[in-house]
């Protein structure tokens, strides 16, 4: 058992899981210059003719320059960059109409599309998401049917090698892919993804279905659903899990791409560290009650009325990595723990089978990674270890292709 505790400890203190918030002055100076050069170059390019001018658009929406800079400085912080980068981030946001984005919906519930439809997330994030150069999104765009298919073909052709491909939804592999088909020729989701991703600069899997298979992949996985990283090889891939994924993190990835032309630093599950380098539990507003041993024993009790820790009613915050405890949902209004509903770990692999229990962690076969709280370390840690070792392999490929190297020793 001691070995297993050590193993889990090692996993969560390993290089890939740690957030490095200070990379040193030399690093940032070099980065600043390369970002600046890139921004200047992007400025010389003309935006797509059908795109709005973001500056005047923000004005129309009643967002003044001051609010916008406040937002830019928050994003700079979120991306873990020093405050000197704020003007660059602001510039990058204004250049978002130069980054072509294609959005595919596969085996999904359209929940992430709903999330970017400004149903959720800080205001400016969504304004930006509404006007980024979204070349193709079935639900939102004006064209429909065959006209839409043509638009997709045009976008792939025009932006060959330059577009970011956002993928929402899992890929059903059972029955030769017949559980999910798309378009006039009933192309399977798998073929569709392979064809569209071929010429993408990078692929961004949005939501838990696209990253790890999500709900459709829950046991017994009737359609043999898998995530993008299970089938896509040799392409830079960024995972933004959670159900739904937070729009702030989608914007973060796009801005990072505009700013640096690179994939952000990723953890072993290919998640951007700026968003998934935090454990829910560590930044939870109810953490003090955990430390004080004050728990909700049953919904509706004294503890529930006084916002005590939800660990005993099944909160998976101690084993879930995501920034919702910091940025929250729906324009920062609230998040599940804020309404006394424990975290269900929706940004972790297989959470429907391993995490989605309404029961205390102590009575199911999963375990907090810190050790010490429960009696045994069990398959939770082991499951993750396996996943992590596969993930690192993919990550290595992704980093090399994206031209990104981590040269800093931890």
């Amino acid at each position, binding site marked *: 058992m001691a070995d297993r505790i050590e193993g889990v400890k090692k996993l969560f203190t390993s290089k890939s899981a740690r957030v490095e918030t200070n990379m040193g002055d030399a690093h940032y100076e070099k980065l600043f210059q390369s970002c600046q050069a890139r921004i200047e170059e992007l400025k010389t390019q003309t935006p797509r003719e059908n795109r709005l001018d973001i500056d005047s658009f923000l004005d129309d929406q009643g967002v003044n320059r001051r609010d916008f800079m406040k937002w830019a400085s928050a994003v700079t912080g979120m991306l873990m960059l020093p405050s000197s980068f704020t003007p660059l981030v602001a510039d990058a946001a204004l250049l978002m109409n130069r980054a072509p984005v294609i959005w595919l*919906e596969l*085996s*999904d*519930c*359209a*929940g992430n*599309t*709903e*999330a970017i*439809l*400004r*149903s*959720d997330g800080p205001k400016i994030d969504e304004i930006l998401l*509404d006007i980024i150069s979204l070349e193709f999104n*079935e*639900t*939102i*765009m*004006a064209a*429909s*049917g*065959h006209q*839409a*298919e043509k638009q997709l073909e045009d976008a792939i052709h025009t932006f060959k090698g330059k577009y970011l491909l956002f993928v929402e939804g*899992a890929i*059903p592999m059972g029955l030769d892919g017949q*559980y*999910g*088909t*798309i378009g006039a020729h*009933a192309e399977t989701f798998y073929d569709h993804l392979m064809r569209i991703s071929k010429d993408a600069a990078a692929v961004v899997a949005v939501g838990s279905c696209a990253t790890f298979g999500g*709900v*459709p992949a829950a*046991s*017994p996985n*009737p*359609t043999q659903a898998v995530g993008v990283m299970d089938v896509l090889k040799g392409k830079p891939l960024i995972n933004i899990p959670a*159900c*739904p994924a937070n729009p702030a993190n989608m914007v973060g990835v796009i801005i990072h791409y505009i700013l640096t032309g690179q994939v952000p630093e990723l953890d072993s599950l290919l998640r951007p560290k700026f968003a998934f380098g935090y454990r829910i539990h560590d930044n939870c507003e109810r953490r003090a009650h955990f430390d004080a041993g004050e728990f909700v024993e049953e*919904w*509706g009790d004294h503890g*529930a*009325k006084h916002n005590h820790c939800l660990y005993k009613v099944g909160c998976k915050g101690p084993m879930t990595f995501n920034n919702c405890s910091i940025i929250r*949902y*729906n*324009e920062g*209004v*609230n*998040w*599940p723990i804020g*309404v*006394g*509903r424990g975290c*269900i770990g*929706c940004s972790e692999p297989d959470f*429907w089978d391993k995490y*989605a*229990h*309404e*029961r205390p962690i102590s009575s199911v076969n999963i375990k907090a990674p810190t050790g010490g709280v429960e009696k045994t370390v069990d398959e939770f840690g082991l499951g993750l270890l396996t996943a992590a070792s596969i993930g690192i392999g993919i990550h290595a490929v992704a980093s090399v292709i994206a031209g990104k190297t981590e040269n800093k020793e931890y």
Partner: protein
Amino acid sequence: MITKKLIDKIEGEACVYFDIKDRVVDFATIAFPNFRGIQEILKGKNALDALVITPRVCGICGHAHLMATVRAIEDAYKNGGYEIVLNQKIQKIREFTLIMETIQNHLKWIYLTIMPELAQLNKSTKILTPLKSAFGSSIAARAIATFAGQWPHSSYMLPGGITCDPTNIDALKAKSYVDELTSFFEKESLGIGIEEFLAFESCKDFKNMDSDISFIEEELIKAGMNKKGFSHDRFIVLGNHSYTNPSKINQTRIYCADAMCVEDIDSYSPNEKTYAKNAVYSGSYYEAGSLARQMSLNVPIVKNMHRRYKDSAYSRVMARIFELAYLLKESNSILDDIDISEASFNAPQHINAITATGIGVVEAPRGPLVHKVSLEKGVIKEYKIITPTQFNIGSSTKSDPTPAQKSMIGVSKEDALFIFRTFDVCSVCTTH
């Protein structure tokens, strides 16, 4: 000749196969080509796991799925001999968040589907403002998040109550979101006050406005939609809420209805594999949704609409817009009635004690959503989901068409495609 049309800009994708004769639709079949197998996934899992899985069936009406699951499990408790009694506070808060979800759905449908499609159909040059819906829905989503934590996909309801214990400040916040949303809707969509709009008794009254809504009304008339898109003139409302009257309506005659009479049958789709089944009530097809709900409540303007234009595409669209205003007012009065000092949760018997079946019925934005569950010692043996789009947009044979199929017969293909969208298609729910 059979021609295939893809329907997108909905939740997921659908395909309509038209059989065109003499330039009009002779018949049409519908296929939903995507499947996830949620019912299979639920089998063998703890009943309470359904609370986090079923909301994920749909990205736009996940809250309705959550409520249907909670109601189904609570019904199983009752049938298993442990009845759960819910106080007013629990019921009102659940109702409030459900209404907000319906409101954001209607808003998105108006601005992202109806206005652009209508403008295209009539070749209108009106400048479209799809972002309005996004802005309005974000206010509704914040109101939901106040009690439910997040939207989409929240799971704050439990058999026995809700997890949140709102303070007066939360209640005030929710109220201010509703106020903000109401003034937004008045200013941006109606062009007049909501009370004035709700007092309308005749379709003629729409002429007194100059706004997005009156634009839609005029364009509907211009496109002849008051004379097209007729369905069976039979309606069904099953969910029991403060703003519904569960009933079966034949033309204008209202009868009582029972969700136990609902079943799903195989659909007819000769041109493509479909994963959708058709929902029938006592063996017949009925139209569900806003028009049905408003008819069941005898709302004067909707009765007037029905007298003039029956169950045309016009009535379907305008009743839905009217319902949006109606629900905004309803949500305000619900908030006024919440007594925060009541308990949020009354712990029921442990779920392991329950071996029984249960049925949960909710009025989702598009109509009745039915969940049926069978539990053995708290574990799901069987789970069945029947969604509103299965009522409206099933695919059947020519001799016994579903509401959507019937409404498309005899019009041009362009008109048919618009009429199809007046039902507000939700593909992801339909196949689940």
